[in-house]
């Protein structure tokens, strides 16, 4: 019994190592990129389009709509980051239905990396949108006294992002593994379905929170 797929190391050379988390991530990346490439290779501009193209369009349009609904004015600008965040986590969690699969999102290293990316992306988007001064000033809002609290909030929410996703996925996988040893029939399937639902919800929560953080950062300019 292991808590994280990081512990399963496939290859190592000094401090460089390839564990199951990284390998699975590559596999997921390959699936996502190849799938996208295959479908978008022959995109049709006609009124009638293929089912695959239609499916991809639904996904992309829904992501864009969600970003827009949160309050970001130019969703296309954030779509690469936020959409990929959602698709990667969703696919990673969805694949838990495959027996023996170790979701990368069940690794605190992965969720931490993603949370770190969000942590870095938020100020980058904020500064790009409203400028360094305005962005930094936003930490002193509504008063200067709030500066430490705002910084703590920034750090804690990043940590919360990482732990929330990790906790949910890891716990789901853990429960499933324990149940398999106790009741190998029926019940694990139900739990697996529940885990699938939880995984989708977590993917949504993670990406929507990231969107909200970025929206909050970019809204500085609109308020000033």
């Amino acid at each position, binding site marked *: 019994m292991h808590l994280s797929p990081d512990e399963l190391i496939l290859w190592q050379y000094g401090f460089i190592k390839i564990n199951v988390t990284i390998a699975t991530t590559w596999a997921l990346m390959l699936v996502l990129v190849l799938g996208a490439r295959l479908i978008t290779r022959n995109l049709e501009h006609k009124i009638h389009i293929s089912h695959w193209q239609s499916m991809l369009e639904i996904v992309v349009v829904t992501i864009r709509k969600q970003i827009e609904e949160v309050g970001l004015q130019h969703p296309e600008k954030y779509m*690469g980051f936020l959409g990929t965040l959602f698709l990667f986590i969703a696919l990673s969690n969805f694949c838990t239905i495959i027996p023996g699969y170790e979701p990368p999102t069940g690794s605190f*290293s992965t969720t931490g990396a993603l949370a770190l990316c969000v942590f870095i992306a938020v100020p980058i988007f904020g500064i790009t949108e409203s400028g360094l001064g305005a962005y930094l000033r936003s930490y002193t809002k509504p008063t200067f006294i709030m500066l430490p609290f705002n910084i703590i909030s920034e750090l804690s929410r990043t940590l919360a992002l990482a732990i929330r996703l990790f906790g949910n996925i890891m716990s789901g996988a853990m429960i499933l593994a324990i149940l398999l040893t106790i009741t190998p029939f029926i019940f694990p399937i139900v739990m697996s379905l529940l885990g699938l639902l939880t995984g989708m919800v977590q993917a949504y929560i993670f990406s929507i929170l990231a969107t909200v953080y970025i929206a909050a950062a970019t809204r500085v300019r609109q308020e000033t």
Partner: protein
Amino acid sequence: MLIDWFTVVAQAVNFLILVWLLKRFLYEPILKALDAREHRIASELANADSKQTEAIAERKEYMRKNEEFDRQRAAMLSKAMEEATVERQRLFDEVHKEAEVLRTKLHDRLSSEFRNMHEEFAQRTQVEVFAIVRQALNDLANESLEEHIIAVFLQRIRSLNSDEKARLGAIFNSPFQTLQVRSAFELESAQRTEIENTIKEALATTASVRFEIEPNLINGLELVIQGQKVAWSITDYLTSLENDVSNLLNLKRKSV
């Protein structure tokens, strides 16, 4: 150890690579395709709108033209009917006139033919009747008849009134005047002498008498001098009968 910093860095790099790859192969192509299709649909809708507007305008124009056409057709039909009525009346009148003319011509021709037929019939009848009569009289002619004819002729000369005798005598007494006696038959010498004596006695003349045979007289005998004639023959009767029949036919023709 829950967190492995190498894995964290590796996953962050992986994620950023994935972001770039998906942006390159998923979002941009899909968004471009969406935009292109939206533009296309918008342009097609605009095109459809313009075509619909055009179609509505054309429909209105078509309906207007159709109504105008109907109006013109009705007017032309009405005009044509009026013209046809007038033309029919004209043709009817013309035909009526032609028929009248033809009827008149036909009537004239029928009348003419009727008349000609009547004339021909009458003439033929006349010719035939007279031919038969002449033939009958010729067949009946014999010596006793000739003697009777001579007796009647002589009686006529004797029974001339005094004025006629004086007028004929004055003619016959002219010098170098020859009396001409025509007969349908050959006169015997005794008969010639009797005739000559009777003439000279009745008319108190000494002129010489010349006898000629004239078969057309049909059992007749006549004394001729300078267009004056004293005669008796069946020809005279027949001529008189012919004149009467001709007069009758002429009267009938005029009445037709």
